[in-house]
Structures are given as structure tokens and as C-alpha cells.
């Protein structure tokens, strides 16, 4: 029986040639087909088709999806997204699935990123009027946010099992005067929040009021954004009173400055996000504890977004509810062909959480404005230096980095009893050298080497008179290496061999065991391949509109980050992936 999805698609295919015949419409689109099958049942069939059309002042967008299951996310088959836009003179009207961003995203930043299953767009409308130096806009709509939680039934690290509905109204005004721009933002969100166990809902009303001020010139950029968020629960459900934490008024402050000295730039960013104060045990439980930063607020993380595979796996997980910190960046050319960049990031929570003698958490009432080094404040620190240049008559491009990362993601205990301080926390301490070399031959062939090395300590550090470190790994330290060897022939094809190997892994991986594929078996004579994940991939450009990619082998699980948002992705064991991207 033909599904509703295929019926919709069929109608579009019939309409497509008709609209083209009239010649007034321009229609184009793209499709992405991904299929994967692995030994550990990480199987997926993911198909997306986007259709874009424009006619005079009108534009339209349709997106169809058939995913059963997708790589990350819920099964879907049908019309996933649609939008119609009208732009004439000073007016813009959008109806359907709307994605907007205001200022630096402290109030609103909507994005649809399927690689990490983040979709915080709204279905509704937007009207915008802009005249010379002023613009005003209003938006309204509904939002359905799906997330993964172990607090409700059906937990699966690939499939979201918990959804929140939001009804949203917002207003924004902005003005440009010479090198200055300023804006105000108002957002009202009524959240329908399902409870974890009872089949009931909580109704939370959030109000966000903010402003941004920016200055932009050849020598200097300045950016300041502030948002104040208040929330209250509409119902009088006394049962939930004990779940409320003490703060229901939060703030977010972000500033960024770039100073340009010739080709050199010095940048400093500062964040102070304090939307809700949750104790360590409640910190990541968004099901039972409400009132924190909203999924609409995708704010600057104020730490570097890496392209290194190994560094991405230890990306700091930002807590938008309670985090302050800064980032210092210096970047510029050392010589005509060598660019150097230095990034230093530091952050922590606002205060220390302490367990009393009844084992109940309480926050110290001393709040800080600059990040602390104290482990009880969940500090994060990263220093990254990179040089990037060309040599051998511009045939060899090299990128060499070095990074140290120190992160205390979770605090487990922290007690002061009878003058004795006992504590335990999770610690990640890593040293990473990511490098990349590309050699370009004269006949459009090129050779790519990605070589990354990492030493990492990860585990629980605790103290009861003496400090003890209990590693999460079977060994005290994990040594990770990633080697990628690629051969490409422009503009048609490239082949890549990726080898990710380690001396140990977390206990859960060791207990589950794994079978080796033939690439890993063949490497056995070189080193112990118990913790080796290898895959072979190829990409072929069929023509300018079609690209085919094939991958065979295993991919190590871990944190996958995109746009500063991270998800844990389970390993892909001994399988193959096929991807076809087409435009039409």
C-alpha cells in the first residue's frame, strides 16, 4: 500500500514538469540518500529530498523525508518541512517552518542540523519590515523538541524518547547607525512539559527580554548581548513545588571584542550564562527540573570548535544554565606562508556545591565573575596552538597543532566535615597533537595524511585524606592515535583509509567485545588491534550534480559534535555505508 509520504512525493513529481513548462517558476532541489548496515545493528536508511522554488517575489521550500531509521533521530516518512516566503520592497513574510537567529543567539537561534538531530525551528509565521536603518519583526509558532533522556521510558542513545511542546511569540527591533547597530528582543514561550512518570503535563511560562549592541570597523569589532529570562509555572500543582530550585530569574551575558593590527587579530570573548542553578545531581536532568535555558537559546560556547577527530571526542559539554568563562584568540601570519593561531579557553560554574551532613546539596552563596580553577566549580581549560602553511613550491600544505585540555565535567561529592574535605569528581586531562599534510602532484593527484596523537587520563579523582585517581579505562592512561591516508584525483575521486586505535578503552567497550574486520586483521602484525577501528572509504563525483560515497569497516563510537552541540554516537562495527547526494 502506498504511504502518504509517497503520495505527496508523487504529486510533487507530477507538478514539477508542469511548472517548468510554464517557464515562470524556477524549481531546483537536492536529494541525499544514506544507507548503512553494521554488525552491531547500527543500521539506517535515511532519505531526504529538498525542493526549492521561486516565482517573482515568492519562494517556497518543501522537504520530504523517509528515514526508517535515520542515523540519529526518530523514524519519519512524509513531508517534513515546508515554507512559503513573500518578499516585496520593505516587507518579508514567511509561513511554515521558520528558522531565524537574533543577535548572538542568547534569545533565539534556530537551526536544523540532522547530523546531531537538533531541530529547534518553529512552525508558524514571521513578518518583517525593514526600512533604511530600521527593521522590525514579529514571529509566532509552535515548536516540538525531541530529546534523549534516561529519566523516561524507552531510552536509546540514537532515538529521542521525550518531547516538549512550546508555543512561541516574539518581537525584535533593530537599527543601524554608521558603524553601530543595536537591537532589542522579546520572546514569550509557553512550554508544555510532560512529567517523567505521571501521564500529566506542567505548563511553564518563559519570558525573555534582551538587547544587543555591536560596533564594526576596520580596526575593531565589539559585540555585547544581554538577556534576562524569567519563568513561572502556571498550574498550582503543589506536588512539583519541591522540584523547583531557588532561582527563577536568569541572565545571559556575552561580549566579544576583536582588535585588528594589520593582518593580526586579537580576540576576547566572555560568557556569563546563569539561567538556572541546579545541583550536580539535577544538572543534566531536564525532565524533572524545569526553568533552565531553552533549546531555542543556542548561544556562543566561547571555546574553539575543532576540526580534529580526537579533539572533537573530548569537546567540553557546555552547561547553558550555569557557566561563565572567556576565550582569548591571537591569529596572524608569521611569514607570508605561515599562519599561526593561539586559542585559550577557560570556564567554570558560578559557585561551589557542597553536601551537608545529611547528604543534601547546597550552593555556596559566593558568586564569581571570572572562572575558577577550583575543581569543585567544574573548571574547563584548553590551550590550543596551530600553525598552517605551505612549503615545497606551495605543493605541501601542513597544519600542525598542539592542545592541552583539562575538564571536570561532573562533581560527585564535596563535603567539609570536622575540618576534613572529602570530594570526588570526574576528570578529563588530555594532551593532543593533531596534524594534517597534503601533497599536491602536478597531474591533479594529491596525497593526504591526517595523523593525530592523544594522551588522555579520564576517570574519577577522589579524596579522603589522600587523593586517588580511578581510571575509567583498564589502564591508567589512554593513548589514542588516528591515521588517515587519502589519495585523490581531482575532480573525480578520492579514496581514504582511516585507522583509529588505542591501547585501552572504557570497561563497557571491553566487556561487549568486538569482531575485527579484514583491515584490522591485516594490521594485527603491526600492533595489538584489540582497540583498533579501521575503515576504507571512497568518494566518486559522477558529474557535477551527483556524488557517490562508499565506506566499509568500523568507526569508533564517541562524541559527535556539530555547531557546538554534541551527541554520543555508538560505534559502527564491520559494516558498510552508502551515500548519494544529488542536485536537480
Amino acid at each position, binding site marked *: 500500500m502506498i504511504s502518504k509520504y509517497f503520495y505527496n512525493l508523487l504529486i510533487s513529481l507530477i507538478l514539477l514538469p508542469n511548472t517548468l513548462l510554464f517557464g515562470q517558476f*524556477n524549481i531546483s532541489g537536492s536529494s541525499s540518500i544514506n544507507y548503512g548496515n553494521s554488525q552491531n545493528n547500527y543500521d539506517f536508511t535515511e532519505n531526504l529530498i529538498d525542493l526549492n522554488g521561486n516565482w517573482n517575489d515568492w519562494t517556497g521550500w518543501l522537504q520530504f523525508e523517509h528515514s526508517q531509521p535515520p542515523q540519529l533521530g526518530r523514524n519519519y516518512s512524509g513531508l517534513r518541512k515546508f515554507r512559503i516566503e513573500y518578499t516585496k520592497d520593505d516587507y518579508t513574510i514567511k509561513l511554515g517552518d521558520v528558522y531565524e537567529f537574533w543577535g548572538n543567539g542568547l534569545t533565539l*537561534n534556530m537551526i536544523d542540523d540532522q547530523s546531531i538531530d537538533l531541530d529547534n525551528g518553529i512552525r508558524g509565521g514571521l513578518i518583517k519590515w525593514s526600512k533604511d536603518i530600521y527593521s522590525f519583526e514579529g514571529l509566532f509558532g509552535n515548536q516540538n523538541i525531541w530529546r534523549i533522556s534516561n529519566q523516561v521510558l524507552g531510552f536509546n542513545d540514537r532515538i529521542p524518547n521525550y518531547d516538549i511542546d512550546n508555543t512561541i511569540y516574539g518581537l525584535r527591533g533593530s537599527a543601524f547607525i554608521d558603524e553601530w547597530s543595536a537591537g532589542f528582543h522579546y520572546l514569550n514561550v509557553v512550554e508544555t512539559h510532560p512529567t517523567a512518570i505521571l501521564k500529566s503535563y506542567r505548563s511553564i511560562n518563559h519570558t525573555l527580554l534582551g538587547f544587543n549592541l555591536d560596533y*564594526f570597523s576596520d580596526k575593531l569589532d565589539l559585540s555585547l548581548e544581554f538577556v534576562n529570562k524569567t519563568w513561572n509555572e502556571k498550574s498550582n500543582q503543589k506536588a512539583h513545588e519541591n522540584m523547583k530550585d531557588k532561582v527563577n530569574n536568569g541572565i545571559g551575558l556575552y561580549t566579544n571584542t576583536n582588535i585588528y593590527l594589520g593582518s593580526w*587579530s586579537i580576540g576576547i570573548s566572555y560568557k556569563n550564562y546563569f539561567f538556572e542553578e541546579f545541583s550536580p545531581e539535577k544538572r543534566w536532568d531536564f525532565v524533572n527540573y524545569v526553568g533552565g535555558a531553552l533549546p531555542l537559546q*543556542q548561544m556562543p560556547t566561547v571555546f574553539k570548535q575543532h*576540526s580534529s577527530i580526537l579533539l572533537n571526542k573530548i569537546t567540553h559539554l557546555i552547561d547553558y544554565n550555569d557557566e561563565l568563562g572567556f*576565550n582569548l584568540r591571537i591569529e596572524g601570519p608569521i611569514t607570508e606562508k605561515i599562519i599561526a593561531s593561539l586559542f585559550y579557553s577557560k570556564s567554570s560554574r558560578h559557585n561551589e556545591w557542597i553536601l551537608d551532613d545529611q547528604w543534601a546539596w547546597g550552593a555556596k552563596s559566593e558568586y564569581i565573575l571570572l572562572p575558577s580553577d577550583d575543581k569543585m566549580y567544574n573548571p574547563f581549560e584548553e590551550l590550543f596552538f596551530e600553525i598552517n602553511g605551505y612549503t615545497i613550491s606551495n605543493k605541501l600544505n601542513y597544519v600542525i597543532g598542539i592542545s592541552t585540555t583539562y575538564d571536570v565535567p561532573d562533581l560527585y561529592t564535596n563535603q567539609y566535615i570536622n575540618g576534613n574535605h572529602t570530594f570526588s569528581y570526574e576528570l578529563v586531562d588530555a594532551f593532543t597533537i593533531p596534524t594534517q599534510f597534503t601533497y599536491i602532484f602536478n597531474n591533479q593527484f594529491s596525497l593526504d595524511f591526517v595523523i593525530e596523537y592523544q594522551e588522555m587520563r579520564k576517570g574519577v579523582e577522589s579524596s579522603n585524606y589522600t587523593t586517588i585517581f580511578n581510571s575509567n579505562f583498564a589502564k591508567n592512561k589512554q593513548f589514542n592515535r588516528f591515521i588517515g591516508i587519502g589519495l585523490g584525483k581531482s575532480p573525480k575521486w578520492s579514496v581514504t583509509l582511516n585507522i583509529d586505535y588505542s591501547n585501552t578503552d572504557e570497561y563497557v567497550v571491553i566487556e561487549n567485545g568486538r569482531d575485527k574486520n579484514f583491515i584490522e586483521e591485516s594490521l594485527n602484525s603491526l600492533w595489538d588491534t584489540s582497540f583498533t577501528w579501521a575503515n576504507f572509504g571512497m568518494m566518486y563525483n559522477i558529474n557535477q*550534480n551527483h556524488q557517490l560515497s562508499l565506506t566499509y569497516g568500523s568507526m569508533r563510537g564517541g562524541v559527535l559534535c556539530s555547531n557546538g552541540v554534541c551527541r554520543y554516537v555508538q560505534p559502527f562495527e564491520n559494516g558498510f555505508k552508502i551515500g548519494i547526494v544529488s542536485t536537480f
Partner: protein
Amino acid sequence: MIKKLFFIPFLFISFLISQNVSSNLKLTKLNGRTVTLSEYLKKGPVLINFWATWCSPCKKEMVYLDKFERKYKDEGLSILSISVDSQKSLSHVRSYIRANDYIYDVFLDPNRQVFKKLNGNLMPTNVLIDTEGKVLWRHYGYIPGDEENMDLQLRSALNINP
């Protein structure tokens, strides 16, 4: 299986139709002001390049884009470099451009709305359009050496003999 095969006809549609980009397309400059694509199309063909600070192949390609901008600017070519960095890494975009001394115009598309309108799928994506908005050439990804083909396409769009 039949459902999976249902997508195959889409692979062949591209052989039948030509693609166009709306000249009303609004782009956001680094300072937040907007500009429409038509302002560039008046001057000549436009190469739209999508990139991000975390995308290594994009950065390798940008070296050549800058060379093409310098070489063909007087012939009427405009290279519009659109960063899809989200708000989380946006502060780094301008300093990266300045450090590398790139001269082409840079725009921001943090929630990838322009990227999707131009049927972007992979990074980097390049779309070359003529003054009427017709897509002349499109390319996904970057393999070193692709710049030679890009140069040929640009010359063809500018009617420059090889």
C-alpha cells in the same frame, strides 16, 4: 526495497532541467546588514562558496578562491564567501579572513537557510551563476586540484579564452 528504489528517479531529473537562483536572495554581511544577490549579478557572474572555520577542505580551497578574486575581479567576477559557522564559532570568522588577507566579500549564514536554498548538502559547496541567476556549475567537496577545473569554469563564465 521498492521504497528505497523510489528515490532513484531523482538522480536523473538533473539531466532534464536547469537550475536558477533567485536574484532576490538576501545575504547577511559580517556587520549584520543585508544585501541582495542582484547587486552582484549586475557586475557579472558570481561564485558562491559555502565554508566554515572548522572545515579543513574548505580552508584549503579558500586560498585559491582568493587568487581567483584577485585575478578576475576586474573582469566582473564576484566571489561571495558564505560562512555557515553557527553563532558558537562566529566570532572567529572575521579574524580568520583577516589573518589570511582574503579580499572577497564574506557573509554569514549561521542557521544555513541560504545554504539550503542553494541546495547545499556537503562542505564546501560552490555554485557558479551567471548574471541571469542560472546555475552554470556546482561542485561539492574539495580535492586538491579542483581549483584547475574551477578556473576553467570561471573563464568560461567570463568568456575568457583559455
